């Protein structure tokens, strides 16, 4: 179906609910005394949007707003994902001391606006729409990163983020203009048709693709567009860092998959996506994937700040996920979708513990985790250990299954892809070292006498932490439903 503006609104409910909630929060911020209620409103709004999104699964896939956006299982998956991430983030913010001292009304309003931008990213089917949605997410992220007043790191991070973001999106829109020049359209389906005809300059197309990849790559955080991430992760408020690390990454993957797969490629025989021959962007991705995971892991080895370490580990994980793109199969894409869900659970969990500990000790340095388990915080320490081991990819945790599917997708292609698999596997071994170092500090080292006891029992965050830990284990053992869901989510609306 191909809907006009008014008819599209039926399928636009979740976005409308989110926008309404944002406006409501801004207005109520002026009236209510207890700012905690704002968080509850944001939570209610996201939950309502979630219900509305799930309701759309029964709808026909199709174009909305004169082919600006599409609605299909793929976009719905990333919408559900963004909402899950934002709900977790709001819950985390409720238990965080950092957020207590900022303008909460603006904070929650911006957070939901950012989510709205991710909704558009997941569903845009037009280069202009893609650019605008990406900018919406970026602009709100800049502000949220610099949201801690009187914190120099936070301001520095925001500025760095802004400059990098500006350069990357500038490069991207320049690349888009090349595409427009060559094909005469911004609409993915029209571009697709135009690329099928003879007379396209392959070199120019390749350069345009690389430019566009710069914009996407900066969202997904792959090398060489990764330099902002450690500073931003370290400087931003922890709940927002958690949100940024998973949701922004996932939205970047969504927009990239949509553009490079149903946008400019076609499914050929044998389930492999065929790209325009002569325009070797998959090779570039293959190469970038290897570089990204290696650099991420090597840089993480010597980090002293846990948030910074998780930033580099996030770069490494982006590299693993790129493998799924580089193999050009539906198995690879489905493995990516599986991986982002698993990554959401374990990464948010890890940041949650970081936030909890920082609430009490006021620091995120790994040195402050010395003997944490023996200082009254056995439960958070054990949970963090589970998340970190899951990030390493050890069974029986969910991270192993995620990596397993990615490796399986890579090895299924065989040939030179085996080298990619070998690099990835060796990277997993390297990553064990720094994850285990944190675990060692928490469990194996004895605490310094001057270290405070960390009384974590009764903390609100524990109620959030335990379900995440349980999920990490459950998805490591019984993951069939999740696998079915991600496989079904891989349905694009193509015409």
């Amino acid at each position: 179906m191909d809907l006009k503006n008014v008819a599209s609104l039926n399928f636009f409910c979740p976005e409308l609910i989110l926008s309404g909630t944002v406006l409501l929060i801004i207005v109520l911020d002026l009236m209510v005394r207890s700012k905690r209620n704002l968080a509850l409103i944001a939570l209610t709004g996201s939950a309502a949007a979630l219900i509305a999104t799930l309701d759309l699964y029964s709808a026909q896939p199709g174009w909305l707003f004169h082919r600006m956006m599409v609605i299909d299982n793929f976009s719905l998956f990333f919408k559900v994902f963004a909402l899950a991430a934002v709900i977790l983030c709001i819950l985390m913010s409720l238990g965080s001391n950092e957020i207590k001292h900022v303008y909460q009304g603006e904070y929650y309003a911006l957070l939901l606006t950012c989510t709205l931008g991710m909704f558009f990213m997941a569903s845009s089917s037009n280069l202009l729409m893609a650019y605008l949605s990406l900018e919406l997410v970026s602009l709100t992220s800049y502000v949220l990163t610099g949201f801690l007043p009187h914190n120099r790191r936070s301001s520095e991070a925001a500025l760095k983020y802004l400059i990098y973001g500006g350069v990357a999106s500038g490069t991207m829109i320049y690349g888009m203009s090349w595409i427009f020049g060559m094909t005469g359209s911004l609409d993915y389906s029209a571009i697709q048709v135009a690329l099928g005809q003879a007379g396209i300059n392959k070199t120019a197309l390749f350069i345009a693709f690389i430019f566009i990849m710069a914009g996407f790559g900066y969202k997904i955080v792959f090398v060489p567009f990764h330099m902002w991430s450690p500073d931003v992760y370290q400087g931003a408020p922890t709940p927002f860092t958690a949100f940024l690390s998973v949701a922004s990454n996932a939205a970047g993957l969504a927009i990239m998959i949509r553009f490079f797969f149903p946008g400019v490629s076609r499914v050929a025989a044998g389930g492999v996506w065929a790209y325009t021959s002569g325009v070797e962007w998959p090779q570039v991705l293959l190469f970038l994937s290897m570089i990204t995971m290696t650099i991420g892991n090597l840089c993480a080895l010597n980090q002293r700040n846990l948030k910074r370490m998780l930033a580099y580990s996030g770069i490494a994980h982006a590299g693993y996920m790129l493998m799924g793109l580089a193999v050009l199969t539906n198995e690879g894409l489905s493995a990516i979708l599986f991986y982002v869900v698993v990554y959401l659970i374990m990464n948010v969990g890890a940041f949650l513990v970081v936030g909890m500990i920082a609430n009490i000790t006021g620091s995120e340095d790994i040195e402050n985790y010395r003997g944490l388990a023996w200082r009254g915080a056995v439960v958070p320490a054990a949970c963090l250990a589970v998340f970190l081991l899951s990030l390493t990819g050890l069974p029986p945790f969910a991270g192993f299954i995620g990596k397993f599917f990615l490796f399986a997708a890579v090895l299924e292609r065989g040939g030179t892809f085996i080298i990619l698999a070998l690099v990835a596997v060796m990277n997993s071994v390297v990553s064990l070292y720094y994850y285990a170092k944190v675990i060692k500090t928490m469990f194996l080292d004895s605490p310094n006498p001057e270290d405070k006891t960390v009384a974590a029992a009764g903390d609100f965050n524990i109620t959030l932490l335990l379900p995440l830990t349980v999920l990490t284990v459950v998805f490591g053992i019984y993951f069939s439903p999740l696998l079915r869901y991600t496989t079904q989510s891989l349905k694009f609306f193509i015409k």
Partner: protein
Amino acid sequence: MTFIPLAGAAIVLALPNNAKLIRWVSAAATVPPLIMSIWLVVNFDRNKAGFQFIEKYQWIPAFNISYYMGVDGLSVSMILLTALLCFLCIFASFSIEKAVKGYFALFLMLDAGMMGVFCALDFFLFFVFWEVMLLPMYFLIGIWGGPRREYAAIKFFLYTLFGSAFMLIAILALYFSTEPHTFDMTVMMAQANKFGTEVLPIWPFKQLGWGFQHAIWMALFIGFAIKIPAFPFHTWLPDAHVEAPTAISVILAGVLLKMGTYGILRINFPILPAATADLAFWCLGALGAWNIIYGALCAMAQKDLKKLVAYSSVSHMGYVMLGMASFTTQGINGAVLQMFNHGTITGMLFLLVGVIYDRAHHRDIEGFGGMAAIMPVYTGVTALAFFASMGLPGLSGFISEILVLLGTWQKYPILTIFGASGVILTAGYLLWTIQRVYLGPPNEKYLKFPEISGREMFTLVPLGVIVIIVGIYPSVVLDMLRASLDQINQIVIPHL
């Protein structure tokens, strides 16, 4: 059987912080597996070669992964060993005072993982259990170990994960080569001829003359060789053994090392027979002989009693590899018997070292002397274990070593000569140790040492009895093994 210890771990975690209660509950959790494994040994049909007591359920239908457990003679012997050692080691751990709850919960998880590895017939399941063992082991060494425990724990962890990384790739490669794709080991065995042996046209396989099957074999072998540990990959072992608490050293030497050779027999032999036939001489035979001599020489140079036992393990596992490489009935049966015997004998040795360490708080061989006069009973038991270890006729070590050497003589006489010379070296370092620690004038400092306690005897006696019984009447174990091992052997022989 696999999950009772796991349930035990959950119960232990839920218990109040009462050390005594936790200890006895953990001990109780290891009893059912022991009883079940004895039941398994009794009811096991010794004349049938295939897998018995099969349990199979769909787990992940989308990837054709199933929960598939079953045993043959090879696994039954290992399960018995695991159940017995775990049961005894719980009692050997009663002296642990630090974070008792965590220790026993992790110990029981380890127990579950080990049982799972020996029962699993689905490759995915096997890998999951294989990795599940790592974590408890890391913490058990790292929290309750000796002074350099952190280094030892991370070294063990990194080494093993390095090996399993290769294993994971090999598993996936095998999965995609079967038709229909499956992780079922029995199906893989049936389709063994599907794994190509044509020489791969790329470096370095072209120069080595290796095909797909050889590459997979090697990837799996690296994973298993690290566990055995075979020569270039053995350096984690002395560290881990020395730093680990006594009971964990016993488990490490008694069970974990066996997983390497078990994996080779269970997976490399029947699933990749052609590559096994091609690579066995160098990778198993020659490396095994080298392990025997190298381990024995290293053991001779040690000053630390526990390190000496650790290197003697390297040496003894060499016999297992050598025996497997022979492809003769005696050799392969001897190899598996040696696995079983080494588990019991080295278990005893580590427990004995633990006994003296609890009293003297050091393990320096030169620091003792004349212990025979101070602790006569203890010395008697130690002598039994040492003699069994050096292969004195009448004790179990002799039977398995002689079988291995008999089996290999028919195939590789030169290697056998090297292997046999290891026996002399072993006798050399063990007798020398006895002389330095137990004989001579008693050390003044240690005159007041109490004799070995009832609990310590309780952990040692069952192992000692097994050592003597198997030494006199080895058929108890060999009968169980023969049919299954012959079948494995028959798969490889046509490819020689």
